[in-house]
């Protein structure tokens, strides 16, 4: 066959028609010839012109595929009106590997992810140009303005038709700004304009010490727009940047010249409202808050019309007028004055028809729907829509950065469907920790399920791995170090008891047993206090060295508690308020517990608690705006007023009696605990920058523990101030309050016997936060804080301005399973009570769970 000479096809004469006798594909290893023939659109038996359109079309189709670097179609034989076609293809080379030169490992990782060339895929010219461009753009965006990228294709000698790509990147040095010069500016001086250009700054100047000096084209252009905006905001709406020039210098710097033509300053003239029927023009004008004679500021105008919470358009949007529109039109410009006409289109009121909830793959729909404030039959309201987003992110079951409402209007029947697109996030937390401390193992296991479903606990299928979806919280915790300390707790919360109202029910129970030596007590309490005369144990110095005296085993403090609480959302004074009531009972059983005011006997504490709070924060994890205020009171019945007992006598015995009598007296005095306790705290969050990333938090806290009878002051429920605020061993019977920069509890005053006696405290915190990442898989933010606080024993000593101060920095990491963790470094500027003669100085604090 091959010996036959190929037929000659004349392109000069008129084309002749042939029938295809056979099609053969050559030059290909990796594809099925049949399929390749199909690609051409040619088929055996087809009649076609040679030369003619069909063949050209077939060639074009192969090229379109991009798989071949050469396509030829030949007639191998022509005989009696039939043609034998041979399609000769050359496959494009395939990629064996990419080698990068001149880059760091991390850069290679980022880039190869984006370049996304797979081994084994075809190498096309387009692919190469694309990756060149991508790499160049990437480094120019990072300030390497002169980056050069070279891609070289090399044959792979081990595999036919395979190639390597060598990508060589020369980043050169970063380009910085040497001179930044403005001309033509009279209204704003150079340094003001300079400051407006946030990311383009001259190098070698003290005022730019903390600012980037790199020259990045993209941010430079943004900065130019910022300059224009600045002029526009001050009424210079004719202002233009006449020209700007960027000159390269030899030392990797550029000089920038910007010439400005300022134009004149404009003022607002008359504002007319037309098309409005629901609200009178005067009212709309008042809401707009701009009046004749004001500087013409387009940005402010837009904000007052559309953007602000109380913008004019929102009057309509919050009242169902979803289709409404306001168009500000400049009707007349005379001199420096601009008359505006606000053309209002009100449209029909839109009623909400369907509420659709999507993306709840774990959480049951009713948990979401009952929080949605836009309901079928109501008028559309933008405000309620935004509030709903806040409520849903507050639930904690969904990624707060990704709650996307979709407004789907149906103008023909005046209704609107609202679709809430959600993204579930893991919300359960597991804490498992173990450690070797004080010569013994300390372990704890904590589980917190935030989306539990009690009704499904007997449903086998729902255990995957746990019944979830009803938004109930179940937490279990156990902690032990074997013989000396054990603690168990359980708590359950149903946020919507009965499912009809957001009234929450919380039930919790706990038991803790401490015996003999618990290292936390020995370390905390006896450091610096060894040898202090303490009851019958006076002079027991050096105690830490004999921690495991077995005789201490039957010394113990056993605490059991039970509480039940009921929470209710209020609608008055506004609907951010809620109230919480709790009744709880604690039973203390002490034997020779010399670390406490009371050492022997049984105490019972039955108390009631009421808490009023107002919480309007937007997001529980990384809060950007909103505030949170709480005021609470906790009280026991005033037994001493009802029971006839010689309290004064008993109290005196506890001080003056010998060991035996003192113990007996304590037992009688503290069998029923009585106190009243007041706490209040408030925190306010404000975003500081436009992107709402940098957030300022201000917080204050106060607490006061009072008594009904001066001889029966509660030994329990005191405040422990100082340190990380973690309770460590769950120390029921006292309230831990953190103050960074000081050692744990070191700011707590003591009574004359050396035991902690913090009956009141004050604390102030100022904290700046900046998020490093807000991905649902890990949320990380950095913080810097100023803190001050103090605790006092007696009301007489209270001096709210005598505070212990500290400052520091820290970081918080939220991981879905592990919850919030963090580390803070603080510097205490004052001395604590353990070492009154020196400042507390540098302290590290580890934080687990939400504290500050």
């Amino acid at each position, binding site marked *: 066959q091959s010996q036959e000479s190929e037929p000659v096809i004349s392109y000069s004469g008129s084309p002749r028609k042939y029938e295809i006798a056979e099609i053969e594909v050559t030059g290909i290893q990796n594809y099925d010839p049949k399929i390749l023939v199909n690609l051409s659109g040619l088929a055996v038996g087809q009649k076609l012109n040679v030369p003619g359109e069909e063949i050209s079309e077939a060639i074009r189709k192969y090229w379109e595929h991009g798989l071949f670097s050469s396509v030829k179609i030949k007639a191998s034989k022509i005989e009696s009106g039939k043609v034998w076609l041979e399609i000769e293809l050359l496959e494009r080379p395939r990629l064996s590997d990419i080698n990068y030169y001149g880059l760091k490992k991390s850069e290679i990782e980022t880039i190869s992810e984006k370049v996304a060339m797979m081994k084994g895929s075809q190498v096309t010219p387009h692919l190469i140009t694309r990756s060149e461009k991508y790499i160049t753009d990437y480094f120019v965006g990072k300030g390497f303005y002169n980056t050069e990228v070279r891609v070289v294709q090399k044959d792979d000698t081990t595999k036919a038709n395979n190639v390597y790509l060598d990508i060589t990147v020369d980043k050169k040095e970063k380009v910085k700004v040497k001179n930044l010069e403005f001309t033509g500016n009279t209204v704003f001086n150079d340094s003001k304009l300079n400051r407006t250009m946030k990311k383009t700054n001259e190098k070698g100047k003290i005022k730019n010490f903390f600012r980037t000096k790199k020259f990045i084209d993209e941010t430079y252009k943004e900065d130019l727009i910022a300059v224009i905006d600045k002029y526009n905001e001050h009424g210079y709406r004719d202002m233009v940047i006449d020209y700007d020039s960027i000159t390269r210098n030899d030392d990797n710097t550029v000089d920038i010249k910007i010439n400005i033509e300022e134009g004149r300053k404009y003022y607002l003239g008359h504002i007319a409202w037309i098309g409005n029927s629901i609200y009178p023009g005067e009212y709309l004008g008042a809401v707009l808050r701009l009046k004749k004679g004001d500087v013409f500021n387009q940005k402010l105008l837009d904000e007052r019309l559309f953007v602000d919470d109380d913008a004019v358009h929102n009057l309509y949007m919050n009242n169902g007028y979803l289709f409404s529109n306001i168009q500000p039109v400049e009707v007349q410009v005379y001199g420096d004055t601009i008359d505006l006409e606000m053309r209002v289109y009100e449209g029909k009121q839109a009623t909400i*028809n369907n*509420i659709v909830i999507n993306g*709840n793959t774990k959480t049951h729909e*009713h948990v979401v*729907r*009952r929080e949605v404030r836009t309901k*079928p*039959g109501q008028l559309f309201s933008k405000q309620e829509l935004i509030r709903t987003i806040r409520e849903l992110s507050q639930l904690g079951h969904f990624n707060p950065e990704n709650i996307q409402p979709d407004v789907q209007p149906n103008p023909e029947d005046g209704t609107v469907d609202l679709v809430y697109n959600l993204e579930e996030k893991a919300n359960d937390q597991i804490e498992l920790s173990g450690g070797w401390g004080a010569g013994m193992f300390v372990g704890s296991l904590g589980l917190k399920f935030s989306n539990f479903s009690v009704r499904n606990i007997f449903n086998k299928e729902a255990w995957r791995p746990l019944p979830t979806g009803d938004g109930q919280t179940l937490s279990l915790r156990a902690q032990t170090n074997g013989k000396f300390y054990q603690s168990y707790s359980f708590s359950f919360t149903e946020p919507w008891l009965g*499912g*009809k109202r957001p009234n929450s029910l919380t039930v919790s129970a706990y038991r803790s047993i401490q015996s003999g030596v618990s290292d936390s007590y020995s370390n905390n309490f006896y450091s610096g206090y060894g040898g202090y005369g303490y009851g019958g144990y006076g002079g027991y110095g050096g105690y830490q060295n004999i921690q495991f005296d077995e005789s201490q085993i039957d010394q113990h403090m056993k605490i059991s508690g039970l509480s039940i609480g009921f929470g209710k959302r209020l609608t008055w004074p506004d609907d951010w308020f809620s109230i919480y009531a709790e009744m709880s009972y604690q039973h203390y059983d002490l034997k020779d517990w010399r670390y406490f005011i009371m050492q022997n006997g049984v105490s019972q504490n039955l108390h009631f608690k009421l808490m009023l709070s107002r919480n309007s924060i937007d997001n529980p994890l990384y809060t950007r705006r909103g505030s949170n205020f709480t005021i609470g009171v906790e009280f026991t019945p005033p037994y001493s007023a009802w029971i006839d007992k010689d309290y004064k006598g008993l109290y005196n015995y506890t001080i003056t009696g010998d060991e035996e009598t003192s113990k007996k007296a304590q037992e009688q005095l503290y069998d029923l605990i009585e106190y009243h306790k007041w706490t209040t705290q408030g925190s306010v969050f404000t975003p500081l920058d436009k992107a709402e990333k940098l957030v300022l938090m201000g917080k204050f806290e106060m607490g006061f523990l009072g008594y009904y009878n001066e001889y029966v002051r509660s030994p329990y429920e005191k405040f422990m101030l100082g340190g990380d605020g973690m309770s460590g061993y769950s120390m029921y019977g006292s309230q831990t309050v953190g103050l960074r920069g000081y050692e744990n509890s070191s700011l707590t005053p003591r009574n004359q016997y050396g035991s902690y006696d913090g009956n009141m405290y004050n604390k102030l915190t100022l904290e700046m936060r900046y998020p490093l990442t807000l991905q649902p898989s890990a949320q990380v933010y950095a913080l810097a804080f100023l803190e001050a606080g103090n605790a006092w024993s007696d009301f007489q000593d209270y001096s709210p301005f005598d505070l212990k101060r500290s400052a520091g920095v820290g970081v918080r990491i939220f991981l879905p399973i592990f919850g919030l963790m963090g580390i803070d470094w603080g510097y205490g500027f004052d001395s604590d009570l353990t070492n009154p003669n020196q400042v507390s100085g540098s302290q590290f604090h580890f934080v687990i769970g939400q504290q500050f």
Partner: protein
Amino acid sequence: TDYEFKYAKAMEYFEKEDFMRAATLLNELQGVYRGTDKAETINYTYASCLYGLNDYIMAGHYYRQFVKTFPSSQRNEECQFMSGYCYYMTSPKPRLDQTDTYNAINEFQLFVNLYPRSERVAEANRLMDELRDKLVYKSYLSAKLYFGLGDYMGNNYLSAVIAAQNSLKEFPDTKYREELSFLILEAKYIQAVNSVISKKEERMRDAIDEYFSFINEFPESQYLNRAVKIYNDAAKNINFEETN
């Protein structure tokens, strides 16, 4: 060759229902045999293996892929059905996101349209009814939720009525029709009771109208007693207004 052997082995494993082994081999062969005459069998078998392994998400994906890649294959009828069936298997309980339920209905509907004479049409229709009932039940739950919320932050009875009516509009022949209709009647009545005087009468009459259409449609309803009571109370209310 090596690949031929793997192919034969994969088919053998598949016959023996050792899906895990078969799937591993087929996954590799898919790339190798792309664009050849074996590709069809490989893709089909791979999808079936995944189905056999209860990986309905991926199985569904490959069935749909198959239908797209081999539009003229004999196996398309089965694959189209299976693509719906895999969605059917992943469709969760009504309280959760129902995207897969809608997907399943769409795929089954496509199947019924494409292969009206298939012997699986009856089953596809049955499954579609089941899926639709799930959707109705979901909307019934949300209507009931609004009903339960009552007057908490606004008039939720109205929301209940609208939610239930929308559901009936979308799925007129559902088996929950009676429940939904009664819910509408009850919600309308309570809404009327809680209304201000100016709207009360109109809403009572509306509830009464609702009652008549309800007993007309469900003369032997399990809610008959409650419906009659609502009617009597509503009627009393209106008479009272009139005598005043």
